[in-house]
């Protein structure tokens, strides 16, 4: 039987605010344990939350970037469950009136664009961090747990996709595209390795063509895009194998084991899903009026998808547009200024995504500090196009420019890389070479084509390789036949 995977992804993104969601503690990764804590984020008796305006504006921006509806009135709820890293033993989250609902995100897999629906994006607070110590730090074998509440109360946006993802590849593409969006918005650094972006996947399978959903399994603990793709791949295969061997998928949460490359079941306590949501009485409703939403909308930067589109309109191929669009802002500006200065977009894009990036990596210079601007790149591209320098010489010229030796013209001159392509001066040289090599001339006239190459070589020697090879070839044949 032919199975269709049905995948929905929940992404948690920590916001880059200065202070936490409901208190004034600093949001800082890697601080000494329990040093960024106060009565509120430690859940001390009597402490109260007060909502961080910047966090709400960030989730509004995310919602707008994901084409969501921003609710005019939104409220926080208490999500009640006991867990050691949840200081109040309830999480301030959102339930039936999230800030953002019903959007979509376009992703590209193998050149094909697919639209993935966004169910909702809501605001909540992060938990503290548990470190399970004892046999290998593995949850199962933990002997005791160390608690650090520095992360407790960090603003967290949960973005829930519709179950419209159909492959592990798409799952990865969705997560990557979502990351590029929040990074572009500047609302999160979305560092997977630091846990500031985390994802869970809900996976089920159904016979292709069927419309109802199968039993879903939630897979957790993927900490890279690759492990997300692998985990989804593996879970789909596991379910197919299970069902085809007469078994049935059970609704459960499974833990992705990166080393072993498998998911294993997490023993879930019954009743654990009864979160007893109710409106957070310590906070008042939020009214996100249209004026405010409009203000946020006006601050939105160009998003990666829009940019790729624009680059394609410049005439760049899909792949090149993608690579350039993903490049640092500084590099993109060099390209855009060069094109504005009349450079051929394809050539400019190739220089930026090839030589320029390569040079900055080799020399370990940050792209924002490169001594190259659009004007210089346009000049360089022009010189190659007009044949004033060879493309190999152009790499030297670029190197010079990047080292601050001046404009491409100045560098080419200083490094003596300008090609001789003027016919009269080259014509004279050609005449000299023919005179000096009567045998070769004889041979040619006797029908020996090979000598042309020899003569070109002679001429290049005479000009230390600066002669424009095309012109030289032309002149030689003219004079030989004369």
């Amino acid at each position, binding site marked *: 039987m032919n199975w269709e995977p049905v995948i929905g992804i929940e992404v948690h993104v920590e916001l880059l605010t200065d202070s936490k969601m409901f208190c004034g503690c600093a949001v800082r990764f890697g601080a*000494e*344990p329990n040093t960024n804590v106060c009565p509120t984020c430690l859940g001390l008796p009597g402490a109260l939350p007060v909502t961080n305006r910047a966090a709400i504006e960030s989730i509004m921006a995310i919602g707008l970037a994901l084409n969501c509806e921003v609710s005019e009135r939104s409220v926080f709820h208490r999500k009640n469950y*006991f867990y050691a890293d949840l200081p109040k033993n309830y999480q301030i989250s959102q339930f039936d009136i999230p800030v953002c609902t019903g959007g979509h995100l376009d992703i590209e897999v193998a050149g094909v664009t697919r639209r993935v629906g966004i169910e909702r994006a809501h605001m909540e607070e992060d938990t503290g961090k548990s470190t399970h110590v004892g046999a290998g730090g593995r949850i199962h074998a933990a002997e005791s747990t160390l608690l650090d509440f520095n992360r407790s109360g960090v603003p967290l946006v949960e973005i829930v996709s519709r179950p419209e993802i159909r492959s592990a590849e798409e799952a990865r593409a969705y997560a990557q595209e979502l990351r590029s969006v929040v990074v572009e918005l500047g609302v999160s650094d979305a560092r997977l390795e630091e846990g500031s972006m985390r994802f869970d996947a809900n996976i089920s399978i159904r016979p292709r063509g069927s419309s109802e959903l199968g039993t879903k399994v939630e897979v957790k603990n993927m900490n890279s895009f690759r492990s997300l793709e692998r985990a989804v791949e593996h879970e789909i295969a596991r379910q197919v194998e299970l069902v085809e061997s007469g078994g049935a998928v059970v609704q459960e949460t499974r833990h992705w084991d990166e080393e072993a490359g498998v998911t294993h079941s997490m023993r879930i306590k019954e009743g654990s899903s009864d979160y007893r949501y109710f409106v957070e009485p310590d906070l008042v409703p939020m009214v996100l009026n249209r004026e405010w939403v409009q203000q946020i909308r006006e601050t939105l930067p160009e998003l990666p998808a829009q940019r790729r589109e624009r680059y394609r309109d410049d005439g760049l191929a899909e792949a090149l547009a993608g690579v350039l669009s993903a490049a640092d802002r500084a590099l993109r500006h060099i390209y855009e200024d060069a094109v504005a200065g009349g450079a051929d977009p394809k050539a400019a894009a190739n220089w930026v995504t090839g030589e320029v990036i390569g040079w900055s990596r080799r020399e370990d210079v940050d792209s924002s500090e490169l001594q190259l601007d659009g004007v210089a790149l346009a000049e360089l591209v022009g010189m190659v196009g007009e044949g004033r320098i060879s493309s190999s010489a152009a790499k030297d010229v670029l190197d010079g420019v990047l080292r601050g030796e001046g404009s491409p013209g100045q560098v080419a001159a200083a490094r003596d890389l300008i090609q001789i392509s003027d016919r009269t001066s080259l014509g004279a040289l050609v005449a000299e070479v023919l005179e000096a090599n009567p045998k070769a001339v004889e041979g040619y006239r006797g029908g020996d084509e090979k000598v042309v190459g020899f003569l070109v070589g002679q001429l290049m020697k005479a000009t230390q390789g600066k002669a424009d090879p095309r012109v030289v070839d032309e002149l030689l044949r003219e004079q030989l036949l004369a």
Partner: protein
Amino acid sequence: GATPTRLYTPRAMPVEIDIAHVARLARLDLSEEELEGYKNQLGLILEHAARVQSLDVEPHVENAHPLGLFNTFREDIVLPSLDRDEVMASAPETADGYFVVPPAMEGE
């Protein structure tokens, strides 16, 4: 939400209480006897409380802050945190700046 807009149609709410499940949700490690006692008391209180189900008018006021407050935000400004030693002083068990507990059960 906490204030359904539709009118709740009154009906006798059968008060059956899975007291063990409730105690489990509330993380209260109670004996069988204690559970039985609380179950009976809850039954009586809930019988009285079920009176709320006889409300048959649609209230106009939306239950929120009595002064109609909304959008009480704080600006994104960092304030000093607590001194860790003062915090740790009230903790039952700590180790080099961490709070310490036995291994977690999974889930939730």
